[in-house]
């Protein structure tokens, strides 16, 4: 079981829920189980460019991306990149 925490804008799109407990073997599997998967992943199932994902504080892009294994992981944080206006 891993806890996924999403930003407030995404929580608004998930009926107000900002934290999810999911059973998943990889980061991708965990994200695909979210009700906001279409906002985190694009139509090819790839992580959107300005969405960052941290597994227990480690950037998943520095690991195996969506294939990053979750064995023993406690927490996934979905965070929007610092950008915009």
């Amino acid at each position: 079981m891993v806890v996924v925490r999403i930003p407030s804008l995404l929580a608004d799109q998930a009926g107000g829920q900002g934290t999810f407990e999911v059973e998943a073997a990889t980061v991708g599997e965990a994200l695909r189980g979210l009700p906001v998967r279409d906002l985190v992943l694009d139509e090819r199932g790839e992580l959107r460019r300005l969405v960052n994902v941290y597994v227990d504080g480690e950037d998943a892009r520095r690991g195996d991306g969506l294939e990053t294994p979750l064995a023993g992981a406690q927490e996934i944080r979905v965070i929007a990149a610092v950008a915009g206006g």
Partner: protein
Amino acid sequence: MGVLLLVGTRKGLFLIRGGANRSSWELEGPLLTGWSVFHAMQDPRDGNLYVAGNNFVYGGTVQRSSDLGQTWERSEGLGLPEETGLKLEEVWHVESGHESEPETLYLGATPGALFRSGDKGETWEPLMGLVQHETREQWQPGAGGMCCHSIQIDPEDPKQMYAAISAAGAFRTDDGGETWMPRNKNVAADFMPDPFPEVGQCVHKLLLHPEQRERLWQQNHCGVYRSDDRGDDWERLEGNGLPAGFGFPLALHPRDPDIAYVIPEEGAENRVTPNGRLGVYRTTDGGANWELLQNGLPQQAWAAVMREGFASDRNDPAGIYFGTQSGSVFASASEGDEWMEVARQLPPILSVEVGEWS
């Protein structure tokens, strides 16, 4: 029933409720905060609100509300198939389908994409006849991306539709969206080596008159045009009172097909209202002559109104409405003769549409 203005802004949706005589207005919002509302409209068939909303991190979505914005549902699985080599960038415009198809809606998007929903916006399928059009290699993006921003349905024949893309031009289908014909004859593309190509025109807004189905109007990068034969041929209309042919928004009178409104800008290189004055220009003779309407509008303003930022209601006399990038909404209950500012200091306004509330 009162007039409901749906005002899409770069920072959410605002609703403005008009009183019975359209002289008092009440602001509500912002709704859908965090979303850039490129276009919001109320489906006249069932009263549902639809929003084409984008977020720079989370992409483009369609949101639907059946309770005038209190709660929202997001569409599922919006995107382009892998074989196109394209990915959805932004959603631009939602249009109700024909009256005889109450569950059908259309969605325009970048890059040059048109979608249809057969379930009131829950799911969307791309219309591949346009997405993979044989002329696509000749299309190029305008400053707002290669956006499909105008979708018009023939009031009598649901199989006949129009779509306009910047900068690909105008297209018509006579078979319900299977095949699309470029309809850009005599529409200039002054930025191309051939100024009158088959496709590549930078149409900024295209509207079909709701009661005269042969008549189309378009505000283009290169002039204002009218067609009286369903887009087969176009006539350029500027001059005779219009200070410039360049502009983005366009509004039509709900009944009189000879009355249209534009808000010109100086030109492509200086996109503000001409001469530092905010003015609406109206023709009452099919575009032969244009008159400046400015009673109640600021006399000194370097404003800009985006392509979706202009609308008319169906009352008599007709109400005309527009919103500026500087966050003001102006309303006229007298077909443009007199104006009042009904909201100010909103975020940059991207769209204005008219609905109703009770």
